[in-house]
């Protein structure tokens, strides 16, 4: 027995000896610089211009503002390099800490780069174990560098939290798509689906005087004035807050960007994919011209997709089940009950169908890109993979036709059960 133990001890010693000489992989936290955002542009001198935001160690220390000099919670680096990892090496020549990509919260591509195809970068990001699969992908309409710079440091105390939260806003605005790198990558390779990315840009207006509507898409949607979603990123007439704006989505075909959609279309994109949670909508008042009814729309059930192939062409049936709460009735018409509510509901239904078809039409005719993933439902029509591959869904998608069915129900009238118009001195007696 004792000899056996001696042998084991000997073995242990044999192991400990090399161990004592080096702890191979141990890296102290404070020896690392953690990148929180990565921007990729086309470089002037090289294939890529990388922009890195590296969190500063002091940022969390004093609870608030952070560093002494410029108050930035992060340091921004830019470098031109042939690839992501060589860029890191180049930055490491000047940065004192070894750069780690494990905490990247967002990757921003410039639309110029995206239109050329993101394949090589995506592969690098999947292969490296450091990138998070759930980080959002943003396409900046101008340059990624500018976009990252415009994340206003004065208002953003904790940059990581800002990045983590701002791209979750699809849950309550419906104006940006839900994008995770994991999905993005898989869709870019998929036979049945195309990826989308969040569209971002720096706000173009510096003061109220500059406000204009020439880039708004409200005319396209057939409206007299723009709704909240009728903009592309950067065009919203707004001031204050962070100067980076995220609204709309970038449409991809494979790994190549083919177009942009504005906020309104993004909402309908979310509806089609089933990622829609809730948001506030203006719907034209069916009984009173020029007024709007404000609704808080929710998805009461995930949308149902039914795909058929008729004579080699896809025919797609969509069924939506939505519900809404009344938030405001400008015309003070009593939409809470009775026939009026039926009228409102059918009006909303037809409004949604109209808008949806516009959106689907765009994906089919303008982009010819199945960003909603109808192909995933079409797969069930085939028994083997070889047959499905031979059908070539992505090229057939441009021939797709749609039928849309929407069931909308007003569930709750808010805290006001019965609308009444305000009583002025003239009309007071009439209304009673």
């Amino acid at each position, binding site marked *: *027995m004792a*000899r056996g133990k*001696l*042998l084991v001890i000997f073995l242990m010693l044999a192991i400990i000896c090399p*161990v004592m000489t080096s*702890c*191979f*992989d*141990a*890296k*102290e*936290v*404070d020896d*690392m610089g*953690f990148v*929180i955002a990565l921007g990729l542009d086309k470089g002037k001198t090289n294939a890529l211009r990388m922009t890195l935001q590296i*969190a500063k*160690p*002091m*940022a*969390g*220390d004093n609870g608030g503002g952070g560093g002494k000099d410029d108050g930035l919670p992060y340091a921004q680096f830019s470098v031109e390099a042939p690839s992501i990892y060589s860029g890191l090496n180049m930055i490491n020549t000047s940065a004192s800490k070894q750069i*780690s990509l*494990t*905490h990247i*919260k967002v990757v921003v591509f410039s639309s110029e780069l995206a239109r050329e195809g993101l394949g090589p970068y995506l592969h690098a990001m999947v292969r490296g174990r*450091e990138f*998070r699969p759930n980080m959002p992908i943003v396409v900046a309409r101008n340059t990624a560098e500018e976009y990252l710079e415009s994340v206003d440091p004065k208002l953003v105390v*904790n940059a*990581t*939290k800002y990045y*983590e939260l701002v791209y979750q806003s699809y849950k309550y605005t419906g104006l940006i798509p839900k994008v995770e790198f994991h999905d993005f990558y898989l869709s870019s390779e998929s036979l049945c689906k195309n990826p989308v990315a969040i569209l971002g840009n720096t706000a173009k207006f510096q003061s109220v005087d500059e406000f204009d509507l020439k880039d708004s898409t409200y005319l396209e949607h057939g409206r007299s004035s723009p709704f909240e979603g009728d903009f592309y990123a950067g065009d919203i007439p707004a001031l204050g807050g962070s100067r980076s704006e995220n609204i709309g989505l970038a449409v991809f075909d494979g790994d190549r960007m083919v177009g942009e959609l504005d906020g309104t279309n993004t909402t309908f994109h979310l509806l089609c994919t089933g990622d829609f949670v809730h948001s506030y909508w203006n719907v034209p008042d069916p009984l009173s011209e020029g007024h709007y009814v404000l609704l808080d729309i929710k998805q009461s059930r995930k949308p149902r997709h039914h795909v058929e192939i008729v004579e080699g062409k896809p025919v797609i049936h969509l069924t939506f089940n939505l519900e809404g709460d009344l938030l405001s009735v400008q015309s003070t018409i009593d939409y809470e009950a009775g026939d009026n509510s039926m009228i409102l509901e059918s009006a909303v239904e037809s409004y949604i169908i109209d808008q949806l078809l516009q959106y689907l039409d765009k994906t089919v005719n303008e982009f010819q890109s199945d960003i909603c993933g109808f192909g995933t439902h079409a797969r069930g029509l085939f028994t083997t993979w070889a047959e499905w591959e031979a059908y070539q869904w992505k090229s057939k998608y441009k021939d797709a036709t749609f039928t849309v069915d929407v069931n909308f129900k007003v569930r709750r009238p808010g805290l006001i059960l019965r609308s009444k118009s305000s009583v002025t001195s003239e009309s007071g007696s009439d209304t009673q």
Partner: protein
Amino acid sequence: MDIKKRIKNLLFFHEPQMEKPFILKEDSSSDGRDNSDIEKNKEGSRKKKNEDLLLLKKLEKIKLTDKKEGSDKEEKPDISKQLSENKRVIEERFSIPLNGDLIIRKFDITVKDSVIAAFLIFFDGLVDTKVINDDILQPLMLLSNLDIKSDGENILNYIRSHILPHNQLKEARTHQEVIDEVYFGGCGLYIDGLDTAFTADVKEFPGRSVERPNNELVIRGPQEGFTESLRSNTGLIRKRLMDQKLITENIIIGRRSRTPCSIMYVKDIANDSLVAEVRRRLKSIEVDHIMDTGELEQFIEDDPSLPTPQVMATERPDRVCSMLTEGRVAIVMHGSPFVLVVPVTSNDIMYSAEDQYLRFPYSNLLRIIRILALLMSLLLPAIFLAITNYHHEMIPTDLLLAILSAREKVPFPSVVEVFLMEISFELIREAGIRIPGPIGPTLGIIGALILGQAAVEANIVSPILIIVVAVTGLGSFAIPNFSAGFAFRILRFGFIILSAISGFLGITVGLVLMGLWMVNAKSFGVPFVSPVAPRTSGGFSDAVLKSPVWKQEKRPDYMNAKKGRKQPHISRRWINRDVDSNKSDSEDNNG
């Protein structure tokens, strides 16, 4: 020479010596016990086992007789009829007159007109002098003059049955017996013309009375603890366990100290081979002096290199009783307020006495918390190190930045930091115990606070590490068994080294190795991690969480007790009574 031999030993193959490990098997003499399914499965191999058992017993017998031959000399009656001869022997044995506190009281007894010389020996300070005066000396010297009703009897019987009113009177045939008694607080009475001496138990040791247990505190439950005297300890156990089959076997350990010990067990529950093994181990101890059960524990435990204790030391009589009813064996030792209970499993050292007295949801909460505490005390610093050195991506970014900025000014690598803090924590802990009087705990707390604060201020350690070490310390205090706490404190350092070497992989390897080590260990023939590995019926349900008291129907399977069942399937009989009183009554009576 020695080294040469060692190297030779290391390099050449030698046939290993056969060691017969003690394995607790099911008892052959068990009848009337209910057979669970597993036992039925083993039916086929039972015969074989019985043979093994017989062999084992034979082996024991040989050893026991060996022992007897050695001690035969003492057993021979050696008390002479000559009082002066006896007195000479006693004086020699007790080194009179060097020994100052031995009292030899010479006196005369008048029986039937004859005067018989006699003397009494006892130690001053171990006996109750009032009892000696009133119950021994007085009757012998005065009452023997009274009228004698019967005659024709010999003096021995006469004195025993008529004169001495003392309640505990034994006859001794050898001087050794008398001496043992005298050392254990008795008095010896030698009478001229008799080759038998009397011993009477008149002990009144100086010592504590029964107090609250100091280390195993409970909120709900009895508040009595063992003291340093053997008989009051056995009395405390008997007071609770009113079972006719509770046996207290006396045994003496220590060649010179001759410390009296008692083995206690419930005869028709405890496995015979277990009792025999305990007896064998205790009897085979060859030692001059033994002071405490802490020493005894080291003499009888199975594997001295195992970090965790393999014997339960407790100062709570109720705990001992409940373990006795499960078929375990208790060893009570004179002079120690801790009673040993064997065998134990890893569960027993993790659970406190209170678990049984609390309602089961409460005690289950406590158990879960204790398991967490164990894991924290074992692994927390290691995991902290592994995460901060190897797996950065796991930490939430905000927390990471906080750790990062806290560590920014600290000059040491985090391993050194952890070791520094762990060692100073252990220091505070040890100092806290040794500091005299009531300032101890206060100083400990203040020391910890000030030291921690100052260390952070001086940028020697990062504040987050103080939290880690403090929580680890708390965790180790939540482990109810004192020795087990030690075990995990030692193992923790191993885990810290492993995780510093290779992160989570190192911790996993450590856990697997520790698991193999624990699982391989036995405590008196019972596998240490018993109800879980090897799994016995109901292993997981009873091992981790506790079922309600009325559902604890069976004794632990690994104990192989003679009676497997503690209570019938329906122990709360009032529940059935409402439904169908007559029927259930008659059924239960039959069963």
